[in-house]
């Protein structure tokens, strides 16, 4: 295929679809490694809670469930808006794609803002695992362990979300320049896979952090 017909297709690919399929498969392979990365974190949580249920749950009861639940709804909505944008570019509507991407990026920023406010409240409430700690007595050590998990898990997720927000904003800017058409939108697809994966991570972290310790 000549450069005039398909300027985005590199020489080693048979055609644009072959290149797109390769990029998408590469992203899925990367996401498989990411699943194992977060899997280790989830295993640590399950194992620690199994042996220290009372203290872990005492720590979990101090989390701010309104923030966590709002963020869950926000991320689910963002996956929907981004996927809607992807469908629009399939129909050749680059302007609609750009609008969907900006909404998605705005939701990502809202999530991160809420998360920073939540961290500020948590730390002000003496829930940081080192130094003076809110929970005292027999559960203190295990509750500190829970809050270590909380800050590591939410911190790692926030870094992923920040990366995703930058990628989505880049897609929006490229869409504005007219870089994507109904025939070529591979970066939009690849970015969408990453964004939805970050959504899935929060969907799994949400009950671990906010729900399981409550009501026990």
């Amino acid at each position, binding site marked *: 295929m000549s450069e005039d017909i398909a300027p985005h297709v590199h020489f080693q690919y048979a055609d644009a679809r072959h290149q797109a399929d390769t990029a998408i498969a590469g992203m899925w392979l990367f996401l498989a490694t990411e699943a194992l990365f977060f899997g280790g974190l989830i295993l640590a949580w399950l194992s620690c809670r199994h042996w220290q249920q009372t203290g872990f749950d005492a720590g979990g009861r101090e989390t701010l469930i309104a923030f966590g639940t709002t963020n869950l709804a926000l991320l689910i909505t963002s996956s929907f808006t981004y996927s809607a944008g992807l469908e629009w570019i399939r129909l050749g509507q680059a302007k609609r794609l750009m609008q969907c991407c900006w909404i998605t990026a705005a939701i990502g920023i809202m999530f991160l803002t809420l998360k920073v406010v939540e961290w500020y409240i948590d730390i002000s409430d003496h829930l940081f695992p080192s130094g003076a700690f809110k929970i005292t007595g027999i559960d203190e050590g295990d509750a500190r362990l829970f809050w270590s998990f909380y800050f590591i898990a939410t911190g790692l997720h926030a870094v992923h979300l920040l990366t995703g927000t930058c990628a989505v904003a880049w897609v929006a800017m490229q869409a504005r320049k007219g870089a994507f058409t109904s025939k070529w939108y591979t970066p939009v697809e690849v970015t969408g896979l990453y964004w939805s994966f970050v959504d899935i991570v929060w969907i799994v972290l949400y009950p*671990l952090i906010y729900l399981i310790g409550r009501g026990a």
Partner: protein
Amino acid sequence: MSQAHRQLLLCWIGLLLLAAVQFGCAALRFDRSYRPLLLLPSLIMAALVALQFMRVRHGIAIVRVFAVAGLFWLTILLGLGMMDPMTRAIYPIAAE
């Protein structure tokens, strides 16, 4: 609105409903040991996101292989990792 957009909208509503069910179930009081079952709605939600938003069904064969491989190794990691905690019997120490 295209057929694909309608499907995405339905999926979004379904995800929010599942989140609401999960939130409601968390308010119920049941044994501490069974509370990790609250992860079940999350697993359904994750599957919905993968199938609908990530279009794993429409991907080429190698995409499905990578997705299933990720899931398989995650199961190995969590399954083997939790085997000892789930099966170890704890016996009380006799008072001296």
